[in-house]
């Protein structure tokens, strides 16, 4: 028997749709790509707690408060599974947090938009979680085991969030005129930022061969965006609301909607840090982290003393 060729073994596993586990050999670029993608996803969950968390103390019914609080907690839980999955690739939570807090790491740009009214809580759950599911559903079968398993759980909860968000919107859309107006305003503001969540148009997006081979991506940005619009339109019509796009219309030939592209200049500006809330979001994460430093130090010091006592005994 000759020397095992790790690279070939890895490739053959991918070809057979086998799962790669933390102890398996993997190429450096695969590991790096995953660490970056999973940690960015984790950061998105954590930063994503902020815009909706903004309404927890003001939720207008006790039931709505419980639903929202549980949702924001779920997002934190998603962050936790994902940080753990990334750690299995050899990075540490501190390293990842440091990248987030210093602004080096990216997170989903959508969370740099403000939640101005209660309807935004519904719009975020329905549209943003909805778009996230569409982007992420294939990751349940991605090649890296811990990531795939985390995504199975996350996608299940995200679908739940999407339904709850839509339910909230139905209360508003079929409620008082002021509530309906609130719902329409939220849809107007969240429509294009949500469409941006699928990434730049295919012509500008470098075709990532690896992402397909590693089962991280199945469909292109534009395909996903089109599917999202097709899926959302009947839901919007049911609510009696309209999208802020005069060009949107059904196209019988392609059996899908034609629609306007989002403003990609705005997209780039937000990614660069110039969205309405980039600075607040990062400042908020830094504030909690810094104010929590003494808590973490106390926990470490206490654990250390416990160990010493244990060893001395």
């Amino acid at each position: 028997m000759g020397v095992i060729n790790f690279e070939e073994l890895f490739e053959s596993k991918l070809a057979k749709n086998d799962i790669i586990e933390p102890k398996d050999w993997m190429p450096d670029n695969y590991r790096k790509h995953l660490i970056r993608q999973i940690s960015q996803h984790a950061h998105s969950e954590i930063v994503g707690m902020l815009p909706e968390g903004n309404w927890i103390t003001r939720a207008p019914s006790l039931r709505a408060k419980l639903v929202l609080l549980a949702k924001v907690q779920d997002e934190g839980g998603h962050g936790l599974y994902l940080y753990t999955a990334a750690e299995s690739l050899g990075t540490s939570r501190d390293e990842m947090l440091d990248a987030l807090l210093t602004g080096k790491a990216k997170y989903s740009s959508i969370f740099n938009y403000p939640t101005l009214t209660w309807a935004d809580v519904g719009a975020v759950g329905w549209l943003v979680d909805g778009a996230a599911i569409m982007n992420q559903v294939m990751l349940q079968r991605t090649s890296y085991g811990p990531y795939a398993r985390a995504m199975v759980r996350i996608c299940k909860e995200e679908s739940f969030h999407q339904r709850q968000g839509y339910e909230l919107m139905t209360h508003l859309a079929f409620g008082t005129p002021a509530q309906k107006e609130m719902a329409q305003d939220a849809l107007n503001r969240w429509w294009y930022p949500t469409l941006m969540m699928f990434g730049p148009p295919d012509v500008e997006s470098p075709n990532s061969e690896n992402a397909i081979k590693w089962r991280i991506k199945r469909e292109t940005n534009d395909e996903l965006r089109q599917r999202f619009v097709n899926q959302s339109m009947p839901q919007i019509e049911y609510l009696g609301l309209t999208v802020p796009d005069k060009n949107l219309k059904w196209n019988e030939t392609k059996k899908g909607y034609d629609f306007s592209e989002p403003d990609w200049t705005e997209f780039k500006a937000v990614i660069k840090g110039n969205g309405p809330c980039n600075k607040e979001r990062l400042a908020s994460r830094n504030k909690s982290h810094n104010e929590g430093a003494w808590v973490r130090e106390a926990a470490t010091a206490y654990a250390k003393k416990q160990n010493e006592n244990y060893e001395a005994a």
Partner: protein
Amino acid sequence: MTSQEALFNYNLRLGDTSLILAQRLSEWTGHGPFLEEDLALTNIALDIFGRGKALLEYAAKTEGKGRTEDDLAFFRNDREYFNALITEQPNGDYAKTIVRQALIDCFDLAFYSELSKSKDETLAGIAAKSIKEITYHKRHSFSWVNRFGNGTEESFNRLQNGLNEIWPYAGELFEMNEVDALLIKEGIAVDLSMLKANWEKEISQLLAKANLVAPEGTYVQTGSRKGLHGEHLSYILAEMQSLPRMHPTAKW
């Protein structure tokens, strides 16, 4: 006062205490000292909100005027709220939040364990469901008090400061009035005087373990049983109630 009126007031007292405490705890969500602890405290807030909702639902039913739990939560003014003063105190730093929680958890576990034997089946049911939750809450807050007390100099100082600030509001938890007298006679309410000695014992053990000193000669602040609060509550309510009050006919 009829026993129905007494029960309504008793339910409001318990429901409001849970609601306002959970409202305070939920201010930490997304801002906790680290992720796991953010999730843990949010979990506790969820339990306590759930209990508050059940109690206010029952309050609305005992009132019998067609109001709902949401009407009670969102359309009463602070003078009509009966939450214990300790629950409306600002969170302060994490040490103060934790020590407030420990004092309350210690009381609540004893209280709801007793209430689970109430002759009132609804209250007994809500209480029975809460025991397991509060057992966990108490383990959580007590272990953090111990950790802060025996952690670093800073954590110890913060904990002692938090205790000093919150301590004057703890005694009110044991205050009773004609509502208690009437409902104790009917086997519905818990005789709070029976809980006090054990609470003091458990808390003094906890404080000793954490090297803390209870402030001496503190005057006990009271008033909530009569709907008299500090200045904090009306701000909590202004925030919490703003949306339903802006749209009084809306359903959410």
